């Protein structure tokens, strides 16, 4: 089945949610939560994972999930105690389950004994109980077992005369049932007495009889002797019983299958009377169907006579020896009808509150809306006062269009948004495990988990967040005795919060630990050559040194946070997402790491600048300030670069016209410097001719059509219809480094001279 792939996608998405859910339930258990609802929810998650896994034949996953589920089932029924060990095993089982799901998704083959120890532990907890159903379940997957035989496709008689079954389109195409087995027919006598419960479960005797008839030639005798007088008649009680004689080439099991759903709700006996080579003709017995509704007993004339009258259709069928050939006749029209029905059913279909949409489709929509916003901006720019005077209605309409376009854009962006909960929910466990490993007591509090943010941002938030939480646990929160000595509670607290502020999301990690040790940070920074030993930094600047590249203060590299990456990587990741990160700290009281992220990656706030005749967009997240340098601020340093002195700090300058080889078009240059922050926290000054303004731009990716272009992060279309490239400031800086290295190698002095001249031009 080709559609299987598409279902797999849905399934794995669902698994992700289910696993997240399972994890939070298991964490709750570990926390000592004993509410049975928690167990129910955990059970359901595993159960759903298992259900889908079965459909796709992920056998390893199915059998593990089954054992796991059995244990939880026993727990919720209080047959297994929730000891600490048992809960721990369940938590580990949750991990294995996730591994198995991941393996199934990636197609990797895990070793057959993956998680065998956990499985073993689960089996032990389950006692004997897990083994039996597991075996049964194994059988379930096997194609040739009894369960399968239960459901041999059932043929439907189209000539039944009843309402045409929608599913009947393909039913009549099979050859007559008598030919199926080819063996010698046998005669079975079946005694069938429905009980009232059978009717209450909506099992219709008529349907069973119809099905029996599919198996061969059926004759039926109805016994209505139990039928009471009208006043005593209960509308929902069963009064009739039947005796059938069935001539069939099918075996006993096929007949038992017919009664599969009702065996416990009726008296039934099936015996083989004789083997014969001749179908028996119906004799004086009453025909099948009229007895039908009499099962639910409205007193009919026929029934009152004590004999069911022959139903025409059924009579004919019996006379034909159960021939199904007639069923072929209405096929074409039937097929057409089925098609129509299908179309109808699709339009009339489901009342669900959520749908899953392929991300590509959403992105296409986001792109189209982006185009619309640009077009709209172009039109707005065309509308001037003259137009407004002449066509006031048109201009008013344009204004409305503007509002609606913005609304549309917001709504479309919101489609991509997801609550941060999916990332946050992984953190409690992290904190718990860390605190156990390092022997600290730490409590994690979370707020604002329902804050929504772009899916791509969420996906890339996990690593930085994990790292920062680790850091807070490892470096922030003190050992319990140290805390007590400092007059704090032994248990440290980390607060993880998210909230929306304007167009950005602010995530904070606040701990009540010792704060940044400024002396040590500063000493380390000096030692690493990040700052001069005599530099005069504010407290805040010192705190933020922890984000400098290669900075790590852990004196002994612990296995918690000292993993070769530091907070500088965190900063880089966050910046890649168009976000910023900073830290505020108060010695002895704790630290507050503040992350701000854009709501979406599809638009960005940019500063539009002009360089020669070209416009560029500098992402506003990178911009620190812009200034117009005074004479003497700029000086040449050895090695070929220029620096600008800002409040005593020397900052490298990059001339965008040089980097992008833009001819000056003779316009008057203001020689503006835009101070930007590059990856790793360094600052550079970009020299531009003019700052045109600030606006939100729609990012157009260049990657579809071009190889990566150093220094350029994307493009956008401005309101005037012109294309502007969006700068990747870190890339621009490395271009500059390469360029100066090259020029230094070739003609150092000449290059230096030209550059000096150009500076003067710019500064003039």
């Amino acid at each position, binding site marked *: *089945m080709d*559609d299987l792939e598409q*279902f797999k996608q*849905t*399934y794995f*998405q*669902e698994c992700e949610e289910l696993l997240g859910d399972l994890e939070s339930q298991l964490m709750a258990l570990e926390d000592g939560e004993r509410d049975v609802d928690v167990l129910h929810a955990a*059970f*359901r998650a595993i*159960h*759903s994972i*298992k*259900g*889908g896994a*079965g*459909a*796709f034949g992920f056998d390893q996953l199915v059998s593990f999930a089954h054992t796991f589920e059995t244990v939880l089932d026993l727990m919720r029924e209080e047959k297994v105690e929730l000891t600490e060990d048992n809960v721990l095993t369940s938590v580990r089982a949750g991990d294995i389950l996730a591994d198995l799901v991941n393996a199934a998704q990636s197609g990797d083959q895990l070793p057959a004994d993956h998680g065998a120890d956990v499985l073993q532990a689960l089996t032990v907890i389950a006692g004997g109980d897990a083994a039996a*159903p597991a075996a*049964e*379940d194994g*059988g*379930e*997957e096997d194609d040739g077992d009894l*369960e*399968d035989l*239960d*459901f*041999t*496709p*059932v043929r439907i008689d189209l000539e039944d005369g*009843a*309402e045409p*079954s*929608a*599913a009947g*389109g393909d*039913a009549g195409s099979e050859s007559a049932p008598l030919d199926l087995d080819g063996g010698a027919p046998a005669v079975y006598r079946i005694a069938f007495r429905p009980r009232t419960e059978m009717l*209450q*479960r*909506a*099992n*219709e005797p008529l*349907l069973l009889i119809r*099905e029996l008839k599919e198996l061969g030639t059926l004759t039926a005798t109805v016994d209505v002797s139990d039928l009471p007088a009208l006043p005593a008649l209960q509308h929902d009680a069963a009064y009739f019983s039947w005796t059938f004689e069935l001539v069939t080439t099918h075996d006993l099991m096929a007949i038992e299958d017919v009664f599969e*759903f009702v065996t*416990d*709700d009726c008296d039934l006996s099936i015996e083989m009377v004789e083997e014969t080579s001749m179908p028996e003709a119906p004799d004086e017995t009453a025909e099948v169907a009229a007895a039908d509704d009499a099962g639910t007993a409205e007193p009919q004339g026929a029934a009152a006579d004590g004999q069911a009258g022959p139903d025409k259709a059924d009579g004919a069928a019996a006379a034909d020896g159960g021939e199904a050939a007639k069923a072929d006749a209405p096929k074409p029209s039937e097929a057409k*009808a089925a098609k129509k*029905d*299908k179309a*109808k*059913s*699709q339009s*009339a*279909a*489901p*009342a*669900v*509150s959520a749908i*899953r949409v392929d991300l590509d489709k959403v992105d296409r929509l986001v792109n189209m809306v982006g185009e619309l916003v640009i077009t709209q901006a172009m039109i707005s720019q065309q509308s001037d006062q003259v137009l407004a005077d002449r066509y006031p209605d048109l201009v008013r309409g344009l204004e409305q269009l503007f509002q609606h376009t913005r609304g549309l854009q917001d709504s479309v962006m919101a489609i991509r948004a997801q609550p941060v909960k999916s990332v946050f929910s992984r953190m409690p466990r992290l904190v718990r495990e860390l605190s156990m490993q390092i022997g600290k007591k730490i409590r994690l509090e979370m707020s604002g988990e329902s804050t929504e943010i772009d899916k791509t941002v969420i996906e890339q938030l996990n690593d930085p967040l994990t790292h920062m939480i680790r850091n807070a646990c490892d470096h922030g929160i003190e050992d319990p005795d140290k805390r007590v000595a400092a007059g704090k509670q032994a248990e440290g607290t980390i607060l993880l919060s998210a909230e929306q502020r304007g167009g950005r999301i602010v995530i904070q990690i606040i701990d009540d630990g010792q704060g940044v040790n400024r002396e040590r940070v500063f000493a380390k920074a000096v030692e690493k050559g990040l700052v001069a030993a005599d530099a005069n930094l504010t407290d805040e600047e010192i705190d933020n040194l922890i984000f400098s590249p290669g900075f790590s203060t852990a004196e002994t590299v612990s296995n918690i946070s000292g993993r070769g990456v530091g907070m500088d990587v965190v900063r880089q990741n966050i910046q890649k997402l168009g976000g910023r990160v900073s830290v505020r700290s108060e010695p002895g009281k704790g630290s507050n790491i503040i992350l701000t992220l854009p709501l979406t990656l599809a638009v960005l706030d940019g500063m539009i600048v002009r360089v020669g005749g070209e416009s560029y967009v500098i992402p506003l997240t990178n911009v620190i300030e812009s200034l117009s340098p005074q004479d003497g601020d700029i000086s040449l340093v050895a090695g070929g670069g220029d620096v600008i002195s800002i409040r005593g700090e020397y900052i490298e300058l990059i001339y965008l016209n040089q980097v992008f080889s833009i001819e000056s078009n003779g316009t008057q240059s203001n020689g503006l410097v835009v101070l930007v922050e590059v990856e790793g926290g360094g600052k550079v000054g970009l020299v531009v001719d003019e700052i045109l303004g600030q606006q939100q731009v729609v990012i157009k990716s260049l990657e579809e059509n071009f190889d990566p272009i150093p220094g350029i992060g994307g493009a956008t279309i401005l309101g005037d219809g012109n294309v502007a490239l969006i700068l990747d400031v870190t890339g621009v800086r490395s271009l500059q480094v390469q360029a100066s290295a090259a020029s230094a190698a070739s003609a150092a002095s000449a290059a230096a001279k030209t550059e000096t001249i150009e500076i003067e031009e710019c500064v003039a």
Partner: protein
Amino acid sequence: MTMRILTVDDSQTMRDMLAMTLQGAGYDVVQAENGQEGLDVLKGAEVDLIITDLNMPVMDGFDFIEHVRSDTQHNATPILILTTESAGEKKERGRAAGATGWIVKPFEPEKLLGVIRKVSP
């Protein structure tokens, strides 16, 4: 007249697979995510057959079936339970609640349709 089938399952995967199989066979399909939603659907629509999962949040399959059976409008509607349990206990509980029959997950489309034909008028 097209038969309309209500499917009640908390798993999107399962609902999708059911819907595809059933619609492919020409049935009308209405979906619900749990028993409570299922009951809500039934308030507003006639359905000819119900297929329901057992383990669901909010309202599980057993409660759902009992509610349906106590409602005069649908007390004679066939209800098939959808379960991975081949273990008798779940089937028994389902039956006790009023289920007409059962379908074992994972199902093959042919089998599913076979069982539906078995219980549908």
